[in-house]
């Protein structure tokens, strides 16, 4: 048996690979694990040293049990209702002959373009004590509380569930449907035996995604929750209201558990998913059916009407003189004569641009290293890349405060900067960005790399001449994703803002909290406008260059 030493000529490339893997791993450790370790440590910190006292102080109390109950009640109700509503909506769009499909699809996605509490904002304007309905009808009912949160949350997560179902229902094997029809099954039976089973993975995945989003959301419960507290709002109240970091971190850790489980569940389902379309499949042929199409059209229009109404009333309120007393047209709220003026919007734009740039580089390189290099670190590295998906935004944000707001640590200079907020957004949304990049990387056949290598190209040349040119439309999509999320997110950045680094979405919350609903609405409208302009610009660039198929809205 002869032995083979490490080949000399591979040295350069190996070094390059190690270097790239390090460039990916170090920031993930610093900006994900390090803050998480801090938050974990802080939760055990008591005046008498390390211990479980904080947990003991929280876990047994009646208030805590009620918070857990409330959180789960809201989350589970929302999950069930949303999954049903969104599935039927996706079915209407993908499987029936609906007029104006593209428009309806777009309307369903509108909540993604708005700050994550815009639903609550709209609900308060419509159904609050001073809302449109109470005002016009002279009634006096209140939306604040359980149902307020549930309705706002449904609208908030609807597009996420819709996107999952839409993808699952978009493709099907027509032969199955033909066989079913030939065998004499009626439409209901076909649905129950063919359609529903083939979308069971999507149903489970969407349930987990919706669950995670709702249980960690705190913008909507803050605005429309009234006295009804949930875990997420309690973290905020403990930390911001009472400066009680210990209890805040304990509840944060409690929140981490169900989220981590849900994310693990979603990944597990994803792995068991198998391809339902084979090379021999025939695309689904939709056959018009007047009764079915009418029913689904009415349903889709209703859903769209509700979404548009809630967002529309926010836009409307931003242009009124003084909601709800003086409903005349006015542009005065766009003067932003509040503390900091319009600066928070610009801050958001800067953060969004930074997050887009850093996010593309981080997730693109991570996907490159993990997909292209068969190394021992592949498994731990890809685990590290998707860990952030299991961390609630507030928990990560709180971790950043604890980790970087320490004058004696080398990275403390980041604290109080827009850059740190951008980094927080990048690593909060890292898992999604990474998955987009690695899916696209997988689709680029490895034989291109091999062809390039056999023609004599170095790794760097292959990367620059082949991989990057084939990847860039996807990278644009990832940049748009990070920009969009950075513009509208609330939970990850809420603890990180300082007066000079205020961001627009937080401004909406603050103004709403103060009762300045018109100005809050104006800020929301500006955020939506920026997001839509960015989307349009990216879309136009991609279309002009011939990449119509690249998805931008995720």
């Amino acid at each position, binding site marked *: *048996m*002869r032995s*083979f*030493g490490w*080949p*000399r*000529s*591979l040295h350069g*490339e190996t070094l390059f690979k190690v270097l790239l893997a390090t460039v990916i791993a170090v920031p993930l450790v610093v900006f994900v694990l390090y803050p998480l370790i801090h938050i974990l440590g802080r939760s055990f910190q008591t005046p008498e040293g390390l211990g479980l006292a904080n947990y003991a102080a929280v876990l047994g109390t009646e208030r805590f049990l009620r918070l857990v109950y409330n959180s789960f009640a809201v989350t589970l109700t929302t999950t069930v209702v949303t999954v049903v509503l969104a599935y039927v909506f996706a079915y209407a769009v993908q499987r029936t002959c609906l007029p104006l499909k593209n428009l309806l699809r777009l309307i369903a996605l509108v909540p993604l373009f708005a700050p994550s509490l815009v639903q609550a904002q709209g609900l308060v304007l419509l159904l609050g004590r001073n809302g449109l309905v109470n005002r016009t009808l002279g009634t006096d009912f209140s939306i604040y509380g359980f149902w307020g949160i549930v309705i706002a949350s449904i609208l908030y997560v609807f597009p996420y569930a819709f996107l999952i179902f839409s993808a699952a229902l978009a493709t099907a094997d027509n032969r199955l449907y033909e066989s079913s029809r030939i065998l004499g099954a009626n439409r209901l039976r076909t649905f129950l035996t063919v359609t529903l089973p083939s979308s069971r993975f999507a149903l489970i995945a969407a349930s987990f995604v919706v669950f995670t989003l709702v249980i960690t959301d705190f913008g909507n419960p803050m605005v429309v929750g009234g006295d009804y507290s949930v875990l997420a709002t309690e973290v905020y109240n403990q930390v911001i209201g009472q400066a009680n970091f210990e209890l805040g971190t304990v509840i944060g850790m409690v929140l981490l558990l169900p989220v981590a489980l849900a994310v693990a569940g979603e990944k597990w389902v994803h792995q068991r998913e198998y391809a339902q379309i084979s090379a021999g499949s025939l695309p689904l042929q939709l056959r018009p059916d007047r009764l079915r199409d009418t029913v689904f059209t009415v349903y889709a229009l209703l859903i769209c009407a509700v979404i548009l109404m809630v967002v529309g009333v926010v836009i409307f309120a931003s242009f009124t003189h003084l909601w709800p007393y003086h409903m005349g047209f006015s542009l005065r709220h766009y003067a932003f004569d509040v503390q900091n003026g319009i600066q928070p919007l610009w801050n958001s734009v800067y953060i969004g641009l930074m997050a887009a740039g850093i996010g593309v580089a981080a997730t693109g390189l991570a996907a490159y290293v993990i997909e292209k290099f068969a190394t021992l670190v592949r498994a731990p590295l890809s685990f590290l890349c998707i860990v952030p998906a299991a961390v609630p935004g507030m928990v990560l944000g709180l971790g950043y405060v604890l980790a970087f707001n320490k004058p004696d640590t080398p990275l403390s200079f980041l604290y109080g900067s827009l850059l740190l907020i951008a980094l927080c957004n990048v690593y909060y949304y890292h898992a999604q960005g990474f998955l987009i990049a690695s899916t696209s990387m997988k689709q680029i*056949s490895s*034989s*291109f790399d*091999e*062809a*390039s*290598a*056999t*023609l*004599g*190209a*170095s790794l760097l*040349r292959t990367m620059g*001449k*082949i991989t990057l*040119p*084939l990847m860039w439309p996807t990278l644009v999509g990832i940049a748009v994703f990070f920009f969009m999320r950075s513009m509208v997110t609330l939970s990850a950045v809420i603890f990180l803002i300082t007066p000079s680094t205020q961001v627009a979405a937080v401004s909406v919350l603050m103004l709403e909290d103060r009762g300045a609903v018109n100005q809050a609405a104006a800020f929301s409208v500006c955020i939506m406008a920026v997001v839509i302009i960015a989307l349009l610009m990216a879309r136009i660039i991609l279309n002009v260059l011939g990449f119509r198929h690249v998805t931008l809205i995720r």
Partner: protein
Amino acid sequence: MALELRQITKRFGRIKALDDVSITIENGALVCFLGPSGCGKTTLLRVIAGLERPDSGDMRLAGRNLFSVPARKRNFGVVFQSYSLFPNMTIAANVAYGLECRQWRKKDIVQRVEEMLEMVHLKDQAEKFPHQLSGGQQQRIALARALAPKPEMLLLDEPLSALDAKVREELRGEIRLLQQHLGITTIMVTHDQEEALTMADIIVVMQNGRVMQSGPPMILYQQPENRFVAEFLGRMNVVPAGLGVPVPIGTHPTGGQPRILGIRPEDIRLVSDQKKNGHLAGVIDQVTRLGNLTRVTVRVQANNTGCHPDEGWCNGETLRIVAEMQGVHEDLRVGMPGFIDIPFQSVRVLEWQ
């Protein structure tokens, strides 16, 4: 200049993709690696290309150790099954890619690209993108791209399998002509025995990661050493020794070692009477007329054969023997008795494999 592989072994997990493979590839030859899917032929090609690292073994080109040379420094032209033309580059840029990697001068690159495109008759397509070309054209460009940097060897991984029958046949001839014209040592992986028989100087038949036999096509066809090669190249009737089939002198099965006999269908004659050299008697089971060729299957009771349950033969079991005869033979019908005449010169003694 020969390429020598000695005892190459490669495992993927628990599967032995290459099991102690030793071959020598002579300069200027076109060698086909032939075998069913999963036999290790593509892995062997990838090992030679430097895309796969063998677990053990020795690999030399003209005496120079290739083992530690990475793919990009081997200077082998590789054509992949899926062509793998870079979709973001024009045809000309694709062909120029390997030359740019070798830092040729611009003027020389332009000239060489033109020369290569002319060679594959696609000069007018230079500014198009790969997706605008047909499959056959793309494969010719892949060939031009691989040959442009004047590689020491050309490696083709099932280059024709994605094309339709007609284009495939055309390209077969073209590749062979080009290869002979350039005199370049070429290895081609294929699972298509016809492709191997028509193109190769040497065929290497592989199965389960091992080389079963290698040699010129006609030698492999006429003198297969084992059952696998016999059945993989063309049709072969395989019968147990001791059935009454005559055996060429000097090849009598040696005692103890189980042997089997192979007879090509075209060597078998059907006679109407057992007395006229009918070595085996049976019943006609199937008659297929393929134009001027008639294929007849005869069911024969296998008695006194010795029991080889591993091979599915036992006393009293039925053998099916296929004969192919020129002509229409209208008189042959299913159910008729069939007497089989086997000229002893055409019987091959095969190893159990």
